[in-house]
């Protein structure tokens, strides 16, 4: 049961009970702004996921809203945008709060990278409402997301806005990871199979780093802080010192 990229432009109709692959992208749709700036990011990153990891990812993207009952069965919730979007309703905020504090995961991207404007402004505003008391912070360099598959030195992305990821950490789990480097823009291909965007200023190295970062985020979403287990420490330290 797979969806083609073309199917992404209209919301797929899924009859209940829905079937959920172990890994797929679920993209959060919201009103106002532009909820889908990179509609064709799935294929390339899923291919890389298949080629490089043991994860059986489906080349599938499902579009979902916070009130959709399937939200809680989505392993990887993705949200992107360029512009400011409408505030979520109290019900939507409550559902997202429950989702994120009970194992759910959200990767969000400001594909424009304008700090304090547009999507960035709206997203930070909404997160303060969804997870009050938990601030969005720069993820430290030893965070599991930088070590979950590759040992990440550079974030990559279509643009180089931040040399770091941000996130909201609750206990030892970071349910919200936020990027302004447009990773999905770097993963996107057009209909002819060519890269949809150039990566600036780093070119293909920057794109490669974006894929690595993407794979790490996906692996982190499925393994949590596994790499913080004591058995990994000496290996990771040794490799970082090479």
């Amino acid at each position, binding site marked *: 049961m797979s969806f083609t990229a073309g199917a992404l432009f209209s919301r797929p109709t899924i009859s209940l009970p829905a*079937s959920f692959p172990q890994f797929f992208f679920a993209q959060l749709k919201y009103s106002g702004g532009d909820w889908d700036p990179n509609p064709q990011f799935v294929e390339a990153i899923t291919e890389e996921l298949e080629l490089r990891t043991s994860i059986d990812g489906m080349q599938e993207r499902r579009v979902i809203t916070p009130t959709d009952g399937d939200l809680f*069965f989505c392993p990887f919730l993705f949200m992107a945008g360029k512009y400011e979007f409408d505030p979520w309703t109290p019900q939507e905020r409550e559902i997202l709060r*429950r989702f994120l504090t*009970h*194992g759910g995961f959200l990767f969000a991207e400001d594909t424009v990278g304008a700090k304090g404007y547009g999507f960035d402004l709206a997203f930070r505003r909404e997160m303060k409402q969804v997870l009050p008391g938990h601030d969005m912070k720069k993820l430290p360099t030893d965070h599991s997301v930088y070590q979950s598959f*590759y040992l990440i030195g550079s974030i990559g992305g279509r643009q180089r806005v931040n040399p770091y990821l941000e996130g909201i950490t609750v206990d030892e789990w970071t349910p919200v990871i936020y990027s302004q480097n447009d990773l999905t823009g770097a993963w996107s291909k057009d209909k002819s199979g060519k890269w949809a965007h150039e990566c600036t200023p780093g070119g293909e190295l920057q794109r490669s780093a974006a894929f*690595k970062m993407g794979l790490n985020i996906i692996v982190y979403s*499925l393994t949590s802080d596994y790499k913080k287990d004591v058995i990994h420490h000496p290996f990771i330290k040794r490799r970082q010192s090479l």
Partner: protein
Amino acid sequence: MNLNQVTVVPVFPLWLILVLFALGLGATFVQYRLIRAKLGSSRALGLSLLRLGAITFLVAFALNPSLLTTKEHKVSPVVGLLIDTSESMAQPEANGKGSRLDETKALLAKGPNPLLTSLREKFDIKLYGLGESLKILSTDELSGLKAEGAKGDIKGALRELSGKTSVAILFSDGNVKWDDTPTPGLPVLVVPLGNPTEYKDILIKAVRAPSLGFRGREVVIDVTVRGYGTSGLMLPVLLKDGTKLVTAKNIRLPIPSPGETTVSLSFTPEEIGQKNLSISIPEQFGESLASNNHVNLSLKVVRDKIRILMVSGTPSMNYRFMRTALKNDPSVDLLSFVILRTPTDILNVPTQEQSLIPFPVETLFAKEIRNFDLLIFDNFNYSLYLSPHHLESIREFVRGGGSFAMIGGPELVNEGRVGFTPIGEILPVRFPDREKYRRGSPSAVRVSRSGNTHPITRLTAETMGEGITPTSFWREMPSLDGVNLFEPKSSATVLLESADGSAWPILIVSPFGKGRVLALGTDYSWKWYTGRVAKGRGNLAYLRWVDRMVRWLTKDPSLDPVQVTFPENSGFAGQEIEVRVQLQEEESSLNLGAPITFSVFNPDGLKIDSKIRPSVLPGEYLASFAPQKTGIYKIRIETSSGQFEESIVVAGVLDTLDAAPDHESLKAIATKVVSTHEGLLNEIEAYARKGETRFSEEKRSPLWATPYAMVAVLGFLVTEWYYRRRWGLI
């Protein structure tokens, strides 16, 4: 009778008596004057004197004259005979006179000249048995007296006898409680029994052992051995678990004898549960007492943490949520490995950019496997990584008491030949030849009949929700998007099965060897977490379900349907032991109204009397029994859902009895130590006489109450009446 024996105790005041006498005297004088004219002076005087005599007597009665007689009495001294009846007095003596107590009985009541008879002739004899308490004995009870029980409290006994007896005679071998403080002021003569110089015995004097041990951690038991007449002897001290030897150490008893030596025995328990251990020393030739060469003790072995090794074939939601549940439990120590890439995946970066670590299969599955309690394979195609000897190692791990869980997923599709491997041997399921994994056809689950009562799937009311049955609880769980099409083995128990179509088993358990195994035929159980969260019911059910799977697999006692709590210190023979029986909530609800039976079997396997009654707490019962001998007692509790057995070690006084005659203690207790019959009599006489007492008895006899006094009064009056009549006055 002489006059100084006569005393007067006036019944009226003396002045009143004198007034009465004066009135009588006056009346007599008036009478004299009246009759003198008729009869003449001499006759009138005679009659007046007779009247005066009668009045004088009558007035004298008011003085209450009494005759006082004194009689002196002598009281026989009370002699208390204290016969030590503690266990050590049952020890036989080398002189062939039977036990020390028998020797005492013979001395007191047998032979041509029994001491008791001799003493009774002169003294008031009181017999006492000195056991755990002081007991008054009759002469008839002496012959049936038995030596049993703990050491007697001699100081308490003497305190009790002080003031009641003149002297106490103690017949003892010296094994009494004595604290070297001054004795109460009562002379104590001691007749020592037993022969310290000829006594030979080896005993376990003391054992210092923990009552609780941790699996995999060394337990040290200190044993103190004492020897009498065993100077320099070398002998082994054995530690056994049932009949199996755990460890042994040789010791050399000190020179000179008697002396003590302490040895430390250590071992590392590998299995949790109640262990019935014993420490013993082989009986040596000529030993007086063999029973004190053996001590039973119980050790409860628990695990400090449940150590789990989890290997996941791929990063997945199943791994993450199960990891969350396991990490959530502070009693779980989780080591997990996730296969992030397979050998066919491309790794297009240099080593310094990889976070992958080697999968140490040899270390984990050949060397360290026994350090884990539970092994979980989660959607793991183990044939790519594990060699046959690793699989055999896993099988032996489970056979020896370990536990194994296999969580399904598409990676197991390649395990079609699993049935021919050691893993296939231990699993509760078979893999059918046809389709092995089905994805995309969501399937609801239902709980089986067995699952309705099994601790894994019958969660508590707090978890499922008040009034929710396991059937409705599991029916409402989100459907599974992928299931492994297992077939259960005949020895397996299916707890959950798919509710759609062919009822494929989803959750299956079974025992294997000493261990337990579980198969979960889906990689979508994480939906049971998120699905309930989506409905606003929280994640407790999933966390508890994982917790119960782990605890059932690892035989954690907390999941036993019946919890039995023994007293902190195991009981002693002869003492009542109270046992607390708690039915788990689910067991309690299943057992509603049904009787619970409690049976106790002694070390010979015979059922003994026991009682059980409900306590005030729900599901709790209080049971009790009184063991009469030492050893391991088996306790059986039967409820409507089955029977449960536990065992308890009952220790005895004899286990650590030091029966060596302790004449040094007797010297400290005694005012004088005597041993011969004659010597004893003389000493008792001397001490008893010092306490001899006498008393005088006074008797007062009223004189006026005698007939003579009445005759005298009547004599005066009749004589007067006679002469009055003769002389014509009447």
